[in-house]
């Protein structure tokens, strides 16, 4: 009857922690690399290369915004996983009490 459910809340909580401590810092590194060394002075493209010097800041800003969005998405994953682990944990505790 229905699909089988098997859950270890601690493991889900641990996965949320992995996202916070390992996955997010890896993406943060991309943002830091561009933030520290990605800005190019208009003159570096030369006056002849003005087309490129105008388009470049827009590309850079897009990646900043996109990285910010994905960092927020990872925060959302971690938060929801913690909530899920908490809910399963609470349900388990409740059922234990019922059966005792």
């Amino acid at each position, binding site marked *: 009857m229905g699909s089988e459910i098997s859950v270890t809340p601690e493991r889900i909580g641990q996965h949320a922690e992995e996202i916070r401590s390992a996955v997010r810092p890896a993406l943060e590194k991309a943002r830091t690399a561009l933030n520290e060394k990605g800005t190019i002075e208009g003159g570096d493209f030369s006056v002849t290369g003005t087309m490129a010097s105008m388009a470049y800041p827009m590309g850079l800003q*897009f990646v900043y915004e996109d990285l910010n969005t994905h960092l927020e998405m990872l925060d959302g994953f971690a938060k929801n996983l913690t909530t899920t682990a908490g809910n399963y944990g609470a349900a388990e505790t409740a059922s234990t009490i019922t059966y005792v």
Partner: protein
Amino acid sequence: MSAFNSYDTLMGTAAVEAGAAQFILPPAAMVALQFKLSKGSPANLEKAAQAWNDAAASVERTRTLLRERVSAISAKDWTADDRDAYERKAGEFAAQLDILHVYCQAVAIALTVFAWALMIYAIFAVAMGTFLAALAAVAAAALAGIVTAEITAACEAIAATCLTVTLVATGVLAATAQLAAVVFQAGSMLAAVAETAKGNDRALSDFATAQVTGSAAALANLGQNVINGGLAAAGARAGKGLPVSEVDLDADRNADHTWTIGGGATYETPGGTEITGGGHVKYGDHGFAGGDLSGGVKTPAGVGVNGSVGYTDEDGVFHGDAGSIDYGAGVSVETPGSAPTGTGADVPLPNAGASAGIEGSHDFETGEGSVSGSAGVQANGGDVVKGTGKVEYGGEDGTATSGSVDTPVGTYRTPET
């Protein structure tokens, strides 16, 4: 320094040669202007390309990490409908990062290609400048009656052809810049559309935000290049007369939403002393976040001094952590880069120089900082030899020193202590 070590010397040499030839062969003046308009900084573009490569690698690593960590959760630990939903979301996330990864790599490649286009143009410019110099020598000899005078007209015709060739070469460089621009802008739009298809409902609004914030920086770059193009053209036509010879405008925003807005200008007094000055203000989500000031003076005798100081406090001045200060000062001496002529225009000369300086930084929050000194020799505006030494203090490892010597053929480092 890098493969682009010799770029500044090459472009400087080409400008000297074409500039000198213009007094015998008028079309050479326009060639010299094209060279001036086409001088960029391939070394800086290469540095930025490396940052994009690093970003691409980090995005790729994030994607792999997430996939590994999700699949490492055993069926025993989590089998339920919500796991399927989560895995679908994580899969979409990874697919979006794949697209971002490709975009970062594309930008890195476009920057590298354009850096090499600048370098190839510099090599072309030296060849053209050397040819014009030789042509001018022949024409001068003809004018002086050493060889047949008719040759002068032929030399002028050849110089006119050289101008056409240079304009075509400059056009090729401009077209390469346009291709890079397509990668930067159309590429980011394609990435946004593709990510939307992979379930990122914010990618398109990220693109729109980038267009708005990026266009301020784009307009600053456009304004700066248009003004500098005009100043270069005015200088090529009239020689002297304009006291302001170069301007620099900036409006850049970093990933923490802090704007850096400001500019600088180079001013030349009637006596030939060159004064540069500039400043920037940083303004972010938390208000005023620092600023910088810089200035310098260079006398007609070739002696120069300069100094700068900047304060940065990303979380806002008077908020949160204390900021950090950067400072620098330098002295230089060089042989005159040009000599006045009776016609009102200056004739550029090959030049050599030497410089020494000190710079450092100090973080008021952590107490860490570094001070470095450097000295070097330059020819025609590019570094020939440059030595640096550095002391770092206040870090986990206590105090550390390091040093290196750059030459056109490579960099030699002293072992770190």
